[in-house]
């Protein structure tokens, strides 16, 4: 009996020690925590970064921008040093004071970026953010399984009979609405109640033709032919092309959005220098080119595009989309205090049966 008690006491002590250790280990070596989407950088990137700079980097996976915003706003940014955020969310984070002003002196590689990428409307002069990838959203489809090649958002939202039940859409809020807004000829940054309502009706009607909402595995649904036409970011579509050359990507004729995924440093970060070192490392031409080769997204880094393996541009045509075509698309901006109404409309779309 008493041996049992002694054993139990030892176990309690061990458990308490374990808890204490887990809390303490967070305070150990120079380490930065980076919040980043899954499959959005080459797996060796962090290890190589550590090898070169000696700084440890931990990866906190984020699901989407809303997930990231939730985590950063609730914790005040504590626990994160570098965060990857899409352009409209950079504006929001800056307004909330949650991200730091960047010290360009620590980011000499900023000069590698295209001129246009150094002065984007959501963050002129890259005061708070550094562009990481940029691209557009469109339709990704199996050219061998569709009767007619899609050209418009309506092909997604009001599909032909043979496509019904084999379509997926993005459900992450800004992009879900963008499809509806663009299809009706409105701006992706619209907050006009009438326009939002019209888009909402269109998107709710489109729901019954969907196989599912899918933000992350839609390209594998194309490969397995569960789906034939999907709403996709251009880079993700390339993952599908890798596995099945019959997959193609087009930008609908009504136009689409231009998104920029960026890197920001949290204001609460206690390792700002290390965070800057990471961002500067990413901007190196060879590193950024390797990122492009892995993610198959376009990067706004002019020097990186120069050292890139040119065969990639022929295998993945959308990588070769030029800046002027890209800039013809509408840039996503923060919606400011109209965010509440916008979120409400999206919730109504997602909740509708």
């Amino acid at each position, binding site marked *: 009996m008493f041996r049992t008690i002694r054993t139990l006491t030892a176990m309690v002590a061990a458990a308490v020690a374990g808890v204490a250790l887990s809390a303490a280990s967070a305070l150990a070596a120079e380490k930065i925590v980076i919040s980043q989407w899954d499959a959005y950088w080459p797996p060796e990137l962090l290890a190589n970064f550590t090898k070169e700079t000696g700084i440890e980097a931990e990866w906190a996976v984020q699901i*989407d921008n*809303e*997930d990231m*915003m*939730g985590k950063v*706003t609730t914790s005040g940014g504590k626990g994160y040093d570098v965060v990857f955020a899409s352009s409209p969310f950079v504006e*929001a984070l800056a*307004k*909330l004071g949650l991200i730091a002003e960047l010290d360009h002196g620590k980011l000499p590689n900023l000069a590698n970026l295209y001129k246009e990428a150094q002065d984007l409307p959501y963050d002129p002069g890259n005061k708070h953010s550094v562009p990481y990838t940029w691209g557009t959203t469109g339709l990704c489809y199996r050219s061998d399984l569709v009767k007619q090649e899609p050209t418009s958002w309506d092909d997604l939202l009001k599909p032909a009979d043979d496509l019904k*039940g084999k379509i997926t859409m993005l*459900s*992450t*809020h800004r992009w879900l609405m963008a499809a509806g807004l663009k299809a009706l000829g409105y701006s992706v940054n619209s907050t006009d109640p009438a326009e939002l309502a019209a888009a909402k009706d269109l998107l709710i009607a489109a*729901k019954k033709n*969907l*196989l*599912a*909402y*899918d933000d992350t595995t839609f390209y594998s649904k194309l490969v*397995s*032919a*569960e789906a034939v036409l999907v709403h996709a970011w251009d880079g993700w579509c390339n993952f599908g092309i890798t596995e099945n050359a019959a997959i193609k990507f087009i930008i609908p004729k009504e136009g689409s959005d231009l998104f920029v995924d960026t890197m920001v440093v949290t204001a609460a970060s206690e390792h700002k220098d290390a965070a800057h070192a990471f961002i500067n490392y990413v901007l190196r031409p060879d590193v950024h080119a390797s990122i492009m080769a892995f993610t198959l997204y376009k990067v706004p880094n002019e020097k990186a595009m120069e050292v890139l393996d040119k065969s990639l541009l022929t295998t993945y045509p959308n990588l070769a989309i030029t800046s002027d075509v890209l800039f013809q698309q509408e840039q996503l901006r923060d919606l*400011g*205090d109209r*965010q*509440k109404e916008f*979120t*409400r409309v*999206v*919730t*109504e779309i*997602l*909740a*509708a*049966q």
Partner: protein
Amino acid sequence: MSAEVLRRVVLLGPGLGWFALFLVIPCGIVFVYSFFERGTYGGIDYIFTVENYARAADPLYLAIFLTSAKLAAITTLAALLIGYPAAYLIATAPKRWQMPLLILVMLPFWSNYLIRSYAWIVVLNREGLVNHGLQALGLIDEPLPLLYNQFAIVVGLLYGYLPFMVLALYSSISRLNPEIAEASADLGASSLRTFLRITLPLTLPGIGAGSVFVFVLSIGNFITPDLLGGGRSLMVGNLIFDQFLSARDWPFGSSLAFILIAVMLLLLVAQAWAVKRAQGAGIHA
């Protein structure tokens, strides 16, 4: 301090204290939040409003509550219909077989719920086993849409909670006095009649307990509709999850959570009352 009071404090203090701090107060905070407004970027604006509850009463969201209740009810009914014969056989099997048979039913229940839902993604999808099997058998030409809809959710929920129902029913059935059924047969009643008039009513407590638990667990479930619903079929759990993490409308999510709790409490009270009535009528073993 008297010995009695000391005893109370030592025994009840830690537990009740833990509940007070990490259960009651958090739920209280959620209740309070439900009366405030969402901030522009997702925080809380401390302005009193009942708008969240008014919004929850919108037919759009009521439809989600009703759908959740409907799916939970279908799951419960299916679990009952499938589980009762199974539990009956196990409870009336030779004594040395009962435990192994029961454990075999419960075994999946003790493994990870996520994985059990995931298994159905593999089995039900358009290119999955069920469709391939049906096509191979020549029963269908085109694959059936078995996944990412309400059908898949019910299958997932049923799969998750059937063992639980079987356990609850087994508990009740195994407590029956076999002599009563024998007496009924001796008096000339058919086995069906014995079952309907004697066995079934006597096992009502087990049916009640199993049904309420399966229903309550199903209606608040998040994982199964999330993995198997394709985002198109939302249940209350998903809606609340969305409001807290994607839409970042904590006040609205809080109001939804409270309505859910209220519904469940009503059910539990109703069940307790019904069981009391059934027992009060004098029909118990």
